[in-house]
């Protein structure tokens, strides 16, 4: 989230799309309702009418996978009707930047596409620069290659007629949403966009969010109270686990994982440190080398020196373009290339798409270590219905995990609040926390390497890993220390002292930090700030539900990111009633500002978008894999045979795999599978349900797999409410109880009726008679930027079951 949960209460418009907030982030809705009570319009755009819709001002159903068409229409509406916040757009976004001449867009493809590699040459989308290396701008916005004009040209095609035909949303409803939300384009109005996995889990997931970013920039909604783009993240600490990069492509703190062609630390730093010639741009990532060196010092301790590249060569390196995400892990596992591994607090045999393939892939492992609280479809995959345990050669180590109240440490909520949880009791039985599990496994492995040697022992042994897991000590290590006595400016710091904040991290090895964004969260003066429980506020903070002394938020306790965009060039809040920051008597008051620089118009003033190289919000963003501006493509499986926007049916860059017989996709408009399936989690069960199915009151409230469908489809199929049906895709079949409901409506798409059904993914076979994985239906395709799979749209058919085995 650029903003945070309590900030939602400040919005004048709450736009929920790609999220079912009331069901999947139930408590977030407390703040949606607070905003609504104060007069905010709450808009829900989603395939089905849910508990979110029930409490929204209005709900608009749209066909799953057509969000870009919907939002593109909104961008057009805002531009055509001049609903944007003109000063903000001109001063704070790259609207006036000139796009280079090599950029073009033709029939669904941007310039630079290589069909053989399914990749773009992104250099063709670059901005035009002058002889000093500065991006050329035309602040009159007259130049046809000004971003704003390129943008308007791109979305010219997204008229109400075509958007309506593709999305299934009536023109009347389109205008209703566009009008209501575009009203936040005024300086004193704020609109927030709440999204979740309903947006990311598409082959155009990243571009869905890009387009929300574009809309929010046009309306001047970044940086302000009640604004921003707010990912309601799914898991308890998925914000923190992302910050700490349990992801193949990153190392902690949002730095690319090294690749083979960055042979030295210097080469790595050069390739990953953006440069700007514009003195008004903060270009925060210019600081990256400090964070990298501090991370290496945190990992390798005294071993890391400038002479040995701070241990850089001991880091594993990817080949350029190598994808090691879930989709490819299971593909390689299926092919026998992956032999063993660890799964901690995760249930991919239930929660990953195309689970028939995943389950067979897991069968092929030689060994598997699993840390879990309850048995689930992954721990017990070897004895799943239809499998023969004798044929499964996997040696499995199931480690009993402590549950939340049995351990201490920090988690980071979606709003980046870094919060401490205490240990209430010792872990029951022989349970241990996962930190201990890692420490203890590594201690044994390291002892073996120390004694017997082996492959590159230094990689294993030069890391400084703790002997025992101590959460508090790790919090300190994450924050980081001075590794020797230093003097910075007038101030002296002693070896072993905590670094007061990431602005003081250094490239010379004098500081360590395991994740720079958390540096500043544990100080010598105040201790562990994640433990703070102080609810006091200044009157200015109270007006916008800001609690700066409750816990701590990264970065540097800043609660609203890009908050310098909430003030004009002289530091006066656009909306004085809901000011986030304000320049008063030569200093900033309110939230922690995005850097100490004075307002933009003053000497030393800076642009507000400090994380962007050029300092401006990117209406046009040449960095993504699949284009500088979002374009509508159909899901990998679509009921259509023609994409009315272009000849390009699906995302030209989408990731696919082909390692198994399950990696199949329907032809466009396949008559065997005419129904769109979308999948979701639910209020009463969490994600794959492996934990919550063990909660009696939860299982009682939601006991079995269901499929929600419209009365019209039910009638067509001869299905009655409560009947058991079989839902089938090209990849599998699932039994489910029919929930026939007016909350699902048939869509009229390109003049034809298209039905959509929805199914939760919380029910698995380890809880008898509750049903089994809906992911046996979904497919192995992913977004080109993130490889997040497309859970939200695939094709199925259904019929009344003549025999029931799963329920």
């Amino acid at each position: 989230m650029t903003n945070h949960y309590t900030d939602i209460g400040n919005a004048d418009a709450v736009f929920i799309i790609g999220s079912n907030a009331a069901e999947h982030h139930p408590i977030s809705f407390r703040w949606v309702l607070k905003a609504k009570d104060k007069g905010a319009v709450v808009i829900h755009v989603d395939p089905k009418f849910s508990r979110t819709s029930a409490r929204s001002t209005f709900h608009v159903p749209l066909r799953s996978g057509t969000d870009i068409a919907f939002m593109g229409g909104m961008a057009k509406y805002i531009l055509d009707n001049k609903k944007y916040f003109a000063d903000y757009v001109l001063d704070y976004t790259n609207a006036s930047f000139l796009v280079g001449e090599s950029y073009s867009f033709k029939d669904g493809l941007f310039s630079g596409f290589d069909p053989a590699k399914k990749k773009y040459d992104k250099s063709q989308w670059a901005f035009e620069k002058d002889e000093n290396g500065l991006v050329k701008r035309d602040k009159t916005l007259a130049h046809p290659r000004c971003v704003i004009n390129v943008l308007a040209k791109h979305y010219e095609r997204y008229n109400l007629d075509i958007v309506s035909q593709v999305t299934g949303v009536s023109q009347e409803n389109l205008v209703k949403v566009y009008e209501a939300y575009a009203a936040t384009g005024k300086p004193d109005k704020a609109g927030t966009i709440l999204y979740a996995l309903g947006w990311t889990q598409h082959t155009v997931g990243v571009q869905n969010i890009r387009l929300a970013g574009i809309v929010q920039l046009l309306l001047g909604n970044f940086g302000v109270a009640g604004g921003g783009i707010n990912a309601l993240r799914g898991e308890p600490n998925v914000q923190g686990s992302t910050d700490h990069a349990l992801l193949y492509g990153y190392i902690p703190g949002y730095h690319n994982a090294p690749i083979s062609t960055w042979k030295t630390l210097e080469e790595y730093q050069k390739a990953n440190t953006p440069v700007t010639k514009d003195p008004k741009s903060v270009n925060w990532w210019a600081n990256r080398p400090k964070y990298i060196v501090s991370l290496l010092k945190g990992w390798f301790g005294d071993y890391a020196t400038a002479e040995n590249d701070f241990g850089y060569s001991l880091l594993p390196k990817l080949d350029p373009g190598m994808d090691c995400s879930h989709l490819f892990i299971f593909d390689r596992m299926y092919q026998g290339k992956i032999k063993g591994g660890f799964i901690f607090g995760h249930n991919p045999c239930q929660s990953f798409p195309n689970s028939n393939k995943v389950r067979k892939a897991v069968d092929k492992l030689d060994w598997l270590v699993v840390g879990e609280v309850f048995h689930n479809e992954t721990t017990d995959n070897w004895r799943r219905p239809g499998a023969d345990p004798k044929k499964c050669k996997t040696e499995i180590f199931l480690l009993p995990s402590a549950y939340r109240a049995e351990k201490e440490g920090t988690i980071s909520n979606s709003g980046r609040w870094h919060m401490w949880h205490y240990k209430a009791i010792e872990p029951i039985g022989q349970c241990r926390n996962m930190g201990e599990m890692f420490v203890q496994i590594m201690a044994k492995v390291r002892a073996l390497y120390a004694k017997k040697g082996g492959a590159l022992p230094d990689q294993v042994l030069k890391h400084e890993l703790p002997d025992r897991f101590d959460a508090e000590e790790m919090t300190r290590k994450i924050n980081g220390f001075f590794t020797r006595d230093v003097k910075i400016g007038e101030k002296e710091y002693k070896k072993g002292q905590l670094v007061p904040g990431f602005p003081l991290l250094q490239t010379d090895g004098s500081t360590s930090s395991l994740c720079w964004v958390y540096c500043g969260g544990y100080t010598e003066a105040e201790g562990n700030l994640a433990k703070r429980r102080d609810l006091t506020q200044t009157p200015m903070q109270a007006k916008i539900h800001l609690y700066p002394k409750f816990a701590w938020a990264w970065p540097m306790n800043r609660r609203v990111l890009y908050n310098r965009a909430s003030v004009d060039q002289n530091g006066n809040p656009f909306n004085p009633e809901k000011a986030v920051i304000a320049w008063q008597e030569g200093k900033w008051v309110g939230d922690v500002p995005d850097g100490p620089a004075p307002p933009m118009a003053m000497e030393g003033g800076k642009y507000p978008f400090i994380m962007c190289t050029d300092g401006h919000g990117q209406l046009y963003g040449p960095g993504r894999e699949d284009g500088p501006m979002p374009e509508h493509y159909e899901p990998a499986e679509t009921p259509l045979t023609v994409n009315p926007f272009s000849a390009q049916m699906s995302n030209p860059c989408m990731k696919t795999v082909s390692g198994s017989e399950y990696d199949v996709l329907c032809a466009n408009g396949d008559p065997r599978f005419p129904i769109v399936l979308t999948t979701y989690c639910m209020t009463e069960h969490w994600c794959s349900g492996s934990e919550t199915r063990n909660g009696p009151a939860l299982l009682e409230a939601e006991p079995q797999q269901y499929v929600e469908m419209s009365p019209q489809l039910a009638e067509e199929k001869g299905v009655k409410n409560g009947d058991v049906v079989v839902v089938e895709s090209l990849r599998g079949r699932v039994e489910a109880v029919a929930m026939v409901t007016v909350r699902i409506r048939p869509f009229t798409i390109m003049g034809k009726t298209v039905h959509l059904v929805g199914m939760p993914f919380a029910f698995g076979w380890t809880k008898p008679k509750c049903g089994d994985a809906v992911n046996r239906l979904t497919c192995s395709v992913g977004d080109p930027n993130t490889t997040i799979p497309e859970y939200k749209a695939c094709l199925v058919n259904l019929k009344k079951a003549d025999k029931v085995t799963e329920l």
Partner: protein
Amino acid sequence: MPKAIFIDTTHCTACRGCQVGCKEWKNYPPVPTKQLGTHQNPPDLGPYNVKLVRFSEHLEGDTVRWYFFPDCCRHCVDPPCKGASSVEGGIIQDAATGAVIYTELTAKDDLETIRGACPYDIPRQDPKTKRLIKCDMCIDRIQANLLPMCVKSCAMGAMSFGERADILKQAEARLEAVKKEFPKASLLNKDEVAMIYLVADEPAKYYKFAVAEAPSPMTRKSLLAGVFSPLRRMAKSMQG
């Protein structure tokens, strides 16, 4: 001073924190259920489910209405069930809070009589102990200066607990605001119950027994005259 709870259904998201929170606080055992084509589960109140969120959906023209109704004992100001009870000390009303409480002595009472007397069809019986069961307003928590569990669980502002006079004021004010958008909005039996519901539409669209239609609540006198029997029949037919 009597207490009251305001349940503003226009703020309810049916997250079921109240339903589950109640059950957890009471340590009630699980009830086996099936998916029957609705999110409402268990299908009805029971001895181990004294709080149940009821779901009802309607299509009006092109507009979907999905109503949520966290059902439980209304803690009548003058409880007809108490009047119907023939067991001394079985059904008591706490003077301090107004909470209507079923003690273990209700095991000797007749379910049908007591349930029939209730205009909201609330009482149920524990099959093992024969004791009659319903919400006790978390009297244990209230006495310890804690909120009733359902109110505590509700993050949506759909439930408020407090002095009856204050709660009535709050409910009236909220009704005023809601009526601007939903002219049919009303407070259900606000003068007769401690559990005061605000609904935005006709009560029957939420739940058959959302509101008491008979001259209600019945006084002990009318109960003695046997006026409660039609209600009992109604409850029975509904139970089906």
